[in-house]
């Protein structure tokens, strides 16, 4: 078997609990984004365009949807004879029977998988970031610097720096210090959670770390500091461009809005870097005589009879006559009935909004659906539920199931 230069491992295991009801039924990487994509499309597309055709997707929560979504990898051009894309859940080994403990532990448990391809480099990625990046350039940088590990970094506002892993590097990019979520950040160069390792060295460190009982088995918290203290040459690769962690309801909503800004803050319409996805088999969308549609994006299988402004509308959505939808993100196959009014709402897949329902009303004090997961006036509606005709839902709510009498606090 020909040797594979670089294997990518996508960490898609997180439960994504900060996304609330959106990750009840699907793993975070399978959450819809941008009208016709899923979050996992972005790292998979980046791999495909970067010529990395061997990809492991490490998952444990709700792997079924992710498994059937990824399928044979064909949509991302990853249905290769040697390599291709594999979904890797935990398995029963002869000696133990456990779930992945941390990000590094997930890779540790798949050493055998990586060894099969005998790669020189391993690229570790996160399954919940939205960005376009040519990993080839980063690999070239890694080779040029003869690094053991290379970490992609970007400038973040100083006030946010303490939420990230922060790097201090010399002029050449060599990392001198690294601090995971420091209280007093020494730089504003934040790790993007994208690592390239020499496989040979990484394997040794993973095996050591596995034996360390005090380790939380995490790349940021354990592996990187260990490599640094072992004096392995590590470099920071500066990335310039759009990058967003969509781990919260607000950041997910915001990232969607970024693609419909004028001009877009994140441009998906790039013929040299098409975002691949498993396309739904649906006809072009229909805009009726009565519809008004502005500042929005709409995709296949939609039927728009209402009034839509500044929205991201996913495939198969119907918006009936008289409905008004603004600043919202509508997931696939949602049905919004006539005269409903939605403002700043994220509606989960397949939900039906009843006639004349009003969602996103000015807050009132005793909002039964208030949720700390929904901030910045956003309302999040669960998938596959029915919001009754005339229902009223206030800002900053999360609706798991609608109950005329009240709601569920989270």
């Amino acid at each position, binding site marked *: 078997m020909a040797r594979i230069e670089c294997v990518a491992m996508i960490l898609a295991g997180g439960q994504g609990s900060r996304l609330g009801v959106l990750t009840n039924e699907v793993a975070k990487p399978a959450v819809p984004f*941008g*009208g*016709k994509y899923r979050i996992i499309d972005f790292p998979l597309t980046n791999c495909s365009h970067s010529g990395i055709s061997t990809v492991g997707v490490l998952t444990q929560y709700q792997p079924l949807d992710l498994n059937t979504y990824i399928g044979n990898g*064909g*949509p991302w051009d990853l249905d290769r004879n040697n390599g291709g894309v594999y979904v890797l859940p935990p398995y029963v080994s002869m000696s133990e029977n456990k779930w992945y403990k941390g990000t590094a532990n997930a890779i540790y448990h798949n050493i055998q998988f990586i060894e099969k391809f005998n790669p020189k480099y391993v690229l570790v990625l996160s399954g919940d970031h939205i960005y376009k990046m040519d990993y080839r350039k980063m690999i070239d940088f890694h080779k040029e610097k003869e690094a053991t590990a290379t970490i992609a970094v970007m400038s973040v506002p100083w006030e946010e720096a303490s939420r990230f892993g922060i790097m201090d590097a010399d002029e050449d990019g060599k990392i001198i210090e690294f601090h995971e979520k420091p209280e007093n950040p020494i730089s504003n160069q934040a790790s993007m959670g994208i690592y390239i390792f020499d496989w040979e060295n990484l394997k040794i460190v993973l095996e050591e770390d596995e034996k360390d009982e005090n380790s939380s088995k995490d790349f940021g918290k354990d592996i990187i500091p260990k490599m640094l203290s072992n004096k392995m040459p590590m470099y920071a690769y500066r990335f310039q461009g759009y990058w967003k962690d969509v781990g919260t309801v607000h950041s997910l909503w915001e990232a969607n809005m970024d693609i*419909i800004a*004028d001009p877009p803050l994140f441009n*998906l*319409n790039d013929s040299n870097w*098409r*975002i*691949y*996805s498993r*396309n739904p*088999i*649906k*006809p*072009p*969308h*229909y*805009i*009726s*005589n*009565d*519809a*008004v*549609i*502005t*500042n*929005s*994006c*709409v*995709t*296949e*299988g939609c*039927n728009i009879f209402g009034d839509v402004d500044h929205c*991201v*509308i996913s495939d198969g959505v119907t918006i009936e006559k008289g409905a008004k939808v603004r600043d919202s993100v509508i997931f696939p196959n949602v049905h919004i009935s006539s005269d409903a009014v939605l403002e700043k709402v994220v509606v989960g897949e397949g939900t039906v909004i009843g006639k004349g329902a009003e969602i996103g009303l000015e807050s009132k004090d005793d909002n039964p659906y208030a949720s700390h997961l929904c901030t910045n006036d956003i309302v999040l509606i669960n998938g596959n539920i029915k919001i009754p005709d005339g229902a009223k839902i206030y800002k900053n709510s999360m609706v798991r199931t609608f109950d005329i009498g009240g709601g569920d606090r989270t």
Partner: protein
Amino acid sequence: MTNMIGLILSESYLQLNGLTDKRSVEALPIAGRYRLVDFMLSNMVNSDITSVGIVTKTKYSSLMDHLGSGKEWDLNRKNGGLHIIPPYSGRGIQGLSEGTIDLIASASSFIRRSKEDHIILSKGNIVANIDLKEVEKFHEENSADITLVYYESKEATNRDLGDHIVLEVDDNCRVRGIEIRPIRPKSRNVFMNMVLMGTGLLQYSIDEAYARGDRDFIRDLLIKNLSNLKICAYKFEGYVGFVHSVCTYYSANVDMLKEDVRREIFNSSRPIYTKIKDQVPARYGSEASVHNCLIADGCIIQGDVRDSIIFRGVNIGKNTKVSNCIIMQDSVIEAGCELKHVILDKEVTVRDGGRLIGDLTHPMIIDKGEVV
């Protein structure tokens, strides 16, 4: 599971002005993101047919590009799958073969290799969503030798019917007469150019016809055998769009603006497959105004668009008015233009302030890649 194979016979005589200069009619872009052949091919696939032959004649490179390995139709298979059959693969015929029988004869080895009992013969220039398993069931229940598929065209004038083959069908669904492009048609039953029959019977009939020098499937194989064979007719009740002229091409497109037609044709349990292009969702600008349109992915709409079919990747600028148009893939209409009753082929550019006005009966056609 089914017991049929499919064979699509390319139409080569049809000319739709510039639209078919470099492509066969089956490769015509239609309904915003499809090629005409997608409908018949999807019908076959949705009826669990896993082995489909397409007999091509000329100008087939556009069709081959579109179909590729058949992946999008799930026809990239080890057994069966999609076979594009060039006309010269027949029994040593030199040059291009002529007549339907010759076309079918080109597919002899494809037919002979199949293990299925039935074959569906069809043309590729029809827009319809038909369950061929129902046709097979009808064929078996009636113990027919050959089953022809037709629809009743209630509004058609005699003149319209003169473009078609018309069937006389008795109360037992048996075909009693076949008229080719009749001047005074005896019925309104329009043959949909779909035939179901035994693969063995077809093979035998073609061998015989070939030996006799017969060339015409309808005249020599069907009409001559009306009394010898049990030829039945299956009535299809759904929408049918024939594409055999610029006018029928235009109307088959705008028919998709009707909700009932759209719902039937794009029936989600029998979807229409086509080549995937990984386009982004369409974007509407702040001044967009769109009414009664079918709009595909990858478009950027900033102007006023009405009663039109807009294909993938089209760009319509500000202050531009487009109405009753068919705008094919990757065409660009810049700012301040006016277009009415126009068909823009692929990759056409209409520069700032351009004005093109055709007529419903004679839509203006701009050829692929032109700059206006």
